[in-house]
């Protein structure tokens, strides 16, 4: 069973566009521009021309002889449209009407009249979208939750710190996670009986590592024991190479700085390192036995305590802290040493993030560095805890920072802070 489409139905009632056009032209000729305003003109023009009913002369539409005749005779398509309801169409007649999209199988028509959910490639290709009604959505309901891939918030902080260092002209360096005590401590004038070396502070591993070349080891020994030629009295305890060979998990990124010192540095130069460090302690809300440090150093002629303060001030300002204060501190390999506090306008309190200093002469002499070297280090997780307003370091680092935290955190937090 075939039925008229909406178009077919319209033509049955109002006549086919091409017939309507020749009837108009029989009354009077029309300028092309005026004819264009007629309903369904394009369709009318297409078929009237195909039937050789009209001609266009100097922009004027005129009837041909055939056209004259058509106004008087019955139009075949019109007759066929009348036959549709009676279901008397031959196969050839179905083909003619289908081609002009005037009839459709009944089933198809019913389907089209239904409200539909999805626009499909078929609807677009066949033009049938014109015939359908789209079901309405409740467009005011917020979307269903989906979870994109996102960077880890700690990595956003690390990227921010990297960005700041690079902006300030620092080159990145890195080094091994397992170190000999030599690179972690002896190389930088930490005495062999320093409390930080004790097993409750440092993770030791079995076996011994290798010491660097004898020349450097001798220089370090000399300085540790008697101060070498630096004018220092040294630590005055016998330096034991076996202690220096002990393998440990690096306790600070300064080990990376010292490997760089030993490889050689240009003057002036600026280097930085962000890496994992380890302390043998029990985990609590602010401590984990592993965490990240960021550390930068500058070696240049003329650096002093005020320039150290200047660099730290600039660094703080780049993480959004303008108000800072310093306090003298103690560190076995830097003197003077400073702790730098920043005032967080948001938290309305001073926070301590940076430790810094000028390397001691005893800590530079073995590497033949003759200019002042200033350095500062930053507690990365501590900054992350402030930025992401977390009370526990476990919400920042480790498997305890679960998908709930990761899916929910504000990706602009670092920029807003």
């Amino acid at each position: 069973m075939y039925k008229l489409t909406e178009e077919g139905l319209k033509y049955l009632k109002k006549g086919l566009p091409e017939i309507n056009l020749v009837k108009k032209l029989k009354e009077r000729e029309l300028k092309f521009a005026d004819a264009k305003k007629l309903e369904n003109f394009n369709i009318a023009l297409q078929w009237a021309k195909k039937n050789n009913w009209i001609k266009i002369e100097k922009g004027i539409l005129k009837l041909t002889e055939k056209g004259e005749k058509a106004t008087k005779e019955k139009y075949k398509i019109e007759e066929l449209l009348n036959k549709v309801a009676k279901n008397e169409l031959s196969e050839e007649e179905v083909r003619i009407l289908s081609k002009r999209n005037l009839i459709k199988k009944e089933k198809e028509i019913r389907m089209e009249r239904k409200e539909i959910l999805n626009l499909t490639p078929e609807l677009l290709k066949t033009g049938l979208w014109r015939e359908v009604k789209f079901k309405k959505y409740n467009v005011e309901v917020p979307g269903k939750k989906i979870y994109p891939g996102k960077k880890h918030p700690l990595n956003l902080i690390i990227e921010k710190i990297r960005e700041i260092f690079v902006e300030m002209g620092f080159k990145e360096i890195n080094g091994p996670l397992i170190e000999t005590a030599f690179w972690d401590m002896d190389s930088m004038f930490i005495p062999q009986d320093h409390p930080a070396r004790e097993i409750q502070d440092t993770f030791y591993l079995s076996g011994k590592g290798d010491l660097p070349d004898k020349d450097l080891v001798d220089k370090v020994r000399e300085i540790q024991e008697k101060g070498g030629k630096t004018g220092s009295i040294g630590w005055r305890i016998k330096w034991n190479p076996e202690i220096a060979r002990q393998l440990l998990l690096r306790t600070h990124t300064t080990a990376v700085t010292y490997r760089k010192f030993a490889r050689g540095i240009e003057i002036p130069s600026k280097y930085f390192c962000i890496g994992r460090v380890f302390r043998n302690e029990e985990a609590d809300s602010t401590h984990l036995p592993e965490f990240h440090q960021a550390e930068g150093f500058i070696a240049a002629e003329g650096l002093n305590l005020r320039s150290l303060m200047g660099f730290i001030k600039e660094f703080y300002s780049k993480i959004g802290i303008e108000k800072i204060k310093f306090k003298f501190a103690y560190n076995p390999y830097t003197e003077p040493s400073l702790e730098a506090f920043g005032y967080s306008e948001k938290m309305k309190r001073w926070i301590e993030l940076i430790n810094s200093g000028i390397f001691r002469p005893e800590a530079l002499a073995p590497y033949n560095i003759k200019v002042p070297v200033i350095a500062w280090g930053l507690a990365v997780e501590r900054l992350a805890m402030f930025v992401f307003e977390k009370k526990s370091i476990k919400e920042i680092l480790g498997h305890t920072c679960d998908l709930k935290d990761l899916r929910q955190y504000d990706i602009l937090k670092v920029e807003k802070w």
Partner: protein
Amino acid sequence: MVMLNTSLNYLQTLIKKKVSVKELEDILFNLGFEIDSLKGDEIAIEITPDRPDLLSTHGLARAINAFLFKKPEKYEAKKSEIKVIVDESVNSVRPYTVCSVVRNLKFDEQNLKEIVNFQEKLHETFARKRKKAAIGIYPLEKITPPIYYKAVEPQKIKFVPLDSDKEMNGNEILKKHEKGRKYGELLLGKKLYPIFIDSKNEILSMPPIINSAKLGKVTTKTKDVFIECSGEDISTLLKTLNLIATTLADFGGKIYSVEVVYPDKKLETPDLKPEEVKINILNVNKILGTNISKEEAINFLERMGYLIEDGKVFAPCYRTDILHEIDIIDDIGRAYGVKNFKPDFPLIATTGGLLKETKIKNRIRELMIGLGFQEVFTLILSSSEEQFSKMRYESKAIFLQNQIEKSINMLRVSLLPELLKVLKNSQHYSFPQKIFEIAEVILPDEKTETKSVDKTNICALISNSVVNYEEISSVLDSLFSNLHINYKLKEARDKRFINGRSAKIIINKEERGIIGEFCPKVLENFNLENPVVGFELDLSLLLKQP
């Protein structure tokens, strides 16, 4: 951090002018110290380890008074005519002692408690748990000089130790007495134990463990004390002795020296002579970035407790931290006032840059995020239970020797279990769950300087109520095709995964990783209730490309 725990009121009475808590806080901050806590009258002040002289209330008050009024205290010792005779038998166990006497003391509950606390703080910090120095203080009136320092067989040492009412021998003290158990290892393996003993054969103490209850207990009735420090290095002992003697002098006592007679030499101790230090004003200004005159610098040093005589500068005898001119410059900086330094930002032209490795890792992270994976950040410290037993996996690994945290004992060799732990903690959140991490694993390697090698791996997991091998293998394929790396998968027999659902990842004929659907046993071990597929791949070769 080392704390000075004391009474606020007591500290305030020792400072020669009335200072409020706020003023005290400011003075301390300038000197480089902070009030850690203040509850009622109980104050805890954080002292940096370079300044053991500030671990007594009097020591801190001494520094504050000098800072406020200059004119620092100068300490001197008169001869006491008391002798300590050192026997060569101590050579093999604890070879040195230096001694002093302080007379005319007026002890009360407060300063008695203070000297005991100070002694203990010094033992724990500067004296490295009595290894470098052990301090003994005795009521002099109970002792009959000369005093002998010698080493004898432990079973022949018999006395009633402090905090006990029973006579014990040397061995019993190490086993039964609280201090013996705490410090006994310092005498471990020694045939002879050291003792101080007087002319009436009364034992004063068995250093570095415990004093005798009879001769070694100072009370509020004690007027004169005998002090000894024993250890392995004379210069450390002399400093320790000065720390104690000067504090007792601050209590109002008079210091007297003792003649310590060694088989080969005689020492008159303590040595309270301040040491002359030279300052080069050019170096001062170069380091501090200041423009101060030599006179100003000397003035600042006087405020830091240095003694000035005829324009010469002397470091006080109780300072243990001055190794180099730089330490004196640091003191000048503190007195100059940290707030008076103007930060200066010199332009030093250098070019910055990231490691190539960092850049490559960032690109791969971006790709994984683009594939819809959430980045996670797990720990390197792990346990053999999680890395091996629960995973049904084994490999060479590096184990910790001395961990305090009980949940760890090794360095991770694989990221897979660490990421499974994240999924375990995330079971209540919606699925699918797709996570990844690019991070280090550590493996033993005898050929390297540190007997280990850090490898950078990438690991990705997908968990969902229904998930299959193809889902993860297409992620791996996407990773490789975006890196333009040719790879092959070769069926693996790996107990971590379901048989027939895992493959080795092969690049250039070398095995570089593993991919598969986790065996239900592994999921059970990690308490996971949904299937998981995943891969782990070594990126080291890629990152180390020239």
